Structures are given as C-alpha cells and as structure tokens.
C-alpha cells in the first residue's frame, strides 16, 4: 500500500536490542527489545510496514517502520462485567434496603 507524503501515521522503532538492555531489568524484560511508537505526518511517499520518516507534533523528524495509517484509539469501556453489576446491586441494597429498584 503506497502512502502519500503528509499521511498521518504511527511508526515504530527499536531503541535497544535484546543484548543492549539495561542491567537493571529482570530476565523476561531483558529478552525482548526496547521499542517506541510515535505519530506524525509522512515526510515522503512511503509503504505500509516499510521504513519512513515522519514529522511529529513538536516538529521533530523521526524515522521508523510505518505500522498504522490514521491510527485509531482502541481503548473503550470494555465488555460487560457481571461483577460490577453485582457490586452495584450490593451497594444499593446495603444503603437503601433490599427492595430498591
């Protein structure tokens, strides 16, 4: 997929490889690379999942792998949680009585 210059994307880059991690990290963390994700506009035409440079909100130029076009906010209110409904019923009945509707 070819992306035009100026397209708003999210890039990822590796900052430290496995062997370069700080000595202070526990074993599980030492076994994975240290990465970063930054958003901005493409400085040149690029391909999805290929390397490209972007300019960020503060005007910095950052090079990384294009991971996402028009990045979406994926967090939400989550799935229905039965335990919350139960807590709500408990609280209302403990304060206002059993027959609270």
């Amino acid at each position, binding site marked *: 997929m070819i992306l035009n210059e100026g397209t708003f994307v999210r890039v990822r880059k590796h900052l*430290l490889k496995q062997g370069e991690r700080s000595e202070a990290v526990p074993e599980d*963390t030492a076994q994975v690379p240290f990465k970063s*994700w930054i958003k901005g506009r493409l400085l040149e035409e690029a391909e999805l999942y290929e390397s490209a440079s972007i300019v960020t909100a503060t005007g910095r130029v950052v090079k990384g792998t294009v991971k996402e076009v028009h990045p979406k906010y994926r967090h939400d209110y989550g799935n229905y949680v039965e335990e919350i409904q139960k807590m709500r019923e408990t*609280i209302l009945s403990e304060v206002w009585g059993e027959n609270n509707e």
Partner: protein
Amino acid sequence: MSEYNIQDLNDRKQEIIKKSVGLDYSAYEYDGIGFDYEKMMNTAGYDFDDVRNIQQSQMVGDTPLIELKNITRYARKFASKGYGARILLKDEASNLSGSFKARRAAMSIHKAKKLGYEGVIAATSGNYGAAVAALAAKHGLKCIIVQECFDSNNLAQPEILEKARACEAYGAEVIQLSVGPELFYTFLDLLDKTGYFNASLYSPYGVMGIETLGYEIATETKERFDKFPEVVICTNAGGGNLTGTARGILRAGAADTSIYGASVNLQGLHMASDNDFNRKSFTTGHTGFGIPFAVNPDRSDVPRSAARPMRYIDKYFTVNQGSVFFITEALAVLEGLERGPAGNTSLAAAFKLAQSMKEDEIIVVQESEYTGAGKHHQPQLSFAKKNNIDVTFGLPAKEVPGNNIVLPRSAKEISVEEIDLHRVRLSYLKRVADKALAEQDIDFLTQELNITREKLHQLIEEVHS
C-alpha cells in the same frame, strides 16, 4: 544501530539534567549525605502567594470540598455506636485536565515559560502528562510526553492509552515505549536533543504546587466545620502528593491533623517486568512506587527530589485492588460522582478507617481524578479478565496481585493493612548505614525520617545488628 548510547547518556546525565531544570541543585548540597531541603523549597523562585496566584490565573485549584454523606452513612453501618467519622472528598477532578496534577504542572509550565524554554518534556504514564500537555497548550509551549505503555505483545493498559489520547488532544507529542526502566534514557536523550525544560514531578516548584491543596483542605474544613480535620489521607506513589499536601496543611496551622498515606497493594509484581506489566490493574498510586520512593526519594529524575513523604507521613496503609473498584462503584451510585479508580485508593482506605474514628471527627480524602474510556473500573476489570486475572468475590486478604482481583462481597469487607513505618525507616537507613555519619548527617536523617535523635540511633543500631 541503536538510537542512543546508555553509557554516554549516563556520563552526561548531570549536565543534561542541570540544563533542563533551570535550577542549580549544587547550591543546596553540603558535605555528607544530606542537603538543605527547606532552602531548596524556599529559594526555588516562588512563595506561597505566587503559587496561589499562578494557579488561580490558570483555572487550577479552589476545587470543591464535598461531604460524602451517603458514603459516610454507609461506613457508619459497620461502625460501633458513636463511631464513623465524616468523610470529605477534595474533588480534584474539577481541575483543568482532570486531576490534582494540574497544580504541579501549572508551576512547571510557569517556570519553563519564565526561563524562556521553547518546550517541555515529562516522563509519565499518569495524569501528570495530560496536566503538562494542557497547561503547555495554554501557554503556547511545545510538549513531549514519554510513556511506558506496551508489553512485548503490544498490549497496553487501557488507562495508559486513555492518558496518551488526552495528551494528544492537548496537542502534545506522545512517545510510547515498551516496558523497562530505559525510559529514563529516552527521556534524557530527548532533553539533550531538544533543549526543552524537564517538567519533573519532583522539582521544588512541582511539589510547592500541591501545598495549595493541603492549605485549601485545612482552611475550608475549619471554615465549614469550625475545626481542622483529624485526618487527611493521600493516595501515595512518588510521594509528592503527600509531601505537598502535608506542607500546605502545616502552613494553614493545622499541626494536629494526622497525615495518612494509602497505596494499592501490588506486592510481588516487578515494576520492570514485561510479564507483570499488564497483570496489574493500577498504573499508579500503588506500592510499586510508594515504597521505593519512600525508602529512596532521590531515585527520581532530578538530583534532589522535593517529594519526601517520610518527613510528613504519620501512618501508611495499603488496600487491595478489588476494594478500590468497589468504592469507585459506590462513589458513583451513592454520591453521583463518577471518578477514576486510581484516585479513589485513599477513599477505600478512608471508608475503613472512618469506622474506627468518632462520628464527630473528620477524615478528608484529598483527591479524585477524571474518568473516561479506559480509565474506569469496567474497562480495567474487562482487561484484567482478558489477561486471565481471576475476578472473584471474597475477603480482600485473599487477593494475590497478578493472579486475581478480589472484590468485597459487602462494604463491610473493605479493609486496610498498615505498613510498618519502622521497617520503611530501616530500609531507608540501610542505604546509608555503612557511611560515617557526621553531626549534620544525623540532623538530616532525623528530619528525613521525622524521628528524634535517640530513635535514630536505635534504628542505626538495629540496621547494624
């Protein structure tokens, strides 16, 4: 090719930090282990009235102090006759950007602007990011927020994703990182390359910004109830919240008010572990920050932290994750206040502690925070379940952080555990025990740990034995 060289950044750390904070910390140092804390707080360029004026001009502070009548009534159901203190909440969610952190950010941004920096950087996955971003936006400063965000499966806490969104909504650049303390080097590297101001949470002006919170609590309680509160309880992580609040309370003349800290118990989870990162449901206000920062306040991003909770704390409690979720639900359905869970940590503790206080006594919960998608108990419990954390009902003591979340079956089961401050003081002293302590070191330690010289000598002996 790596982005930066840890060794090189470590070598130049002092120089980079000095350039980025606009404060020469060497002016407060003296020989030995200590430094002049009060001098640092008093000569950072602002007095208390300056702080109030700066905050008031920026829509920060003067938040409502709300008497939680239904929560108080609920707590009294489980108290003996004549017991069950009034519970008050300082609704800090009403601040610009939705948390008390705006008080700190207002000061950092004012300082950055005054010193002529082009932009600011803060390393935070918490509310402080949104606060710095919002106030930077108001002052036309550029802003970069550095967040620890994703584990190696690219999974992020919904709460942290929401904070990234909020920062971006205020125009900031957000740099999201995978798990690990190397965040500090990314932060240093950015300070070095951009020349921006380090909007540290731990600067004297940042902590002075919270003094207004303690002051408002004490003076408003006095005005409305004709006495200072018996207890003010602070959610404790890095220690700045508690330190600033306590200093403000003392400034208002409420010397008899007890200062309690409360943190979510995350014992057993390693804060730098990729595997553990998403096995918790609280990203701040927990023991993973609370204890290490109490034991060693200077582990922060400035040479000397202004957040020194052991100087002020009278008692320190933990609560389990399930109790905080329960009280968050209760606050919404009983008081009409839908607020973020992390800010309600001290409310969960206050609910229990009020039951052993007399009914004419007052306990003030000193903060709340905004809520929204991600930053809410439903997405957080939903996320926990997806990560195979068992969500059950039962006694809070049954909760094993990282394995399960135990919600109380009744508010009667909400409980607290007290952290033995004696042990925290011993851990603090272990760091300095093998050093020869001069007279001024002894003075410094008695202030740091808020104990007499006699007590200090006993503790030092205990460390050596």
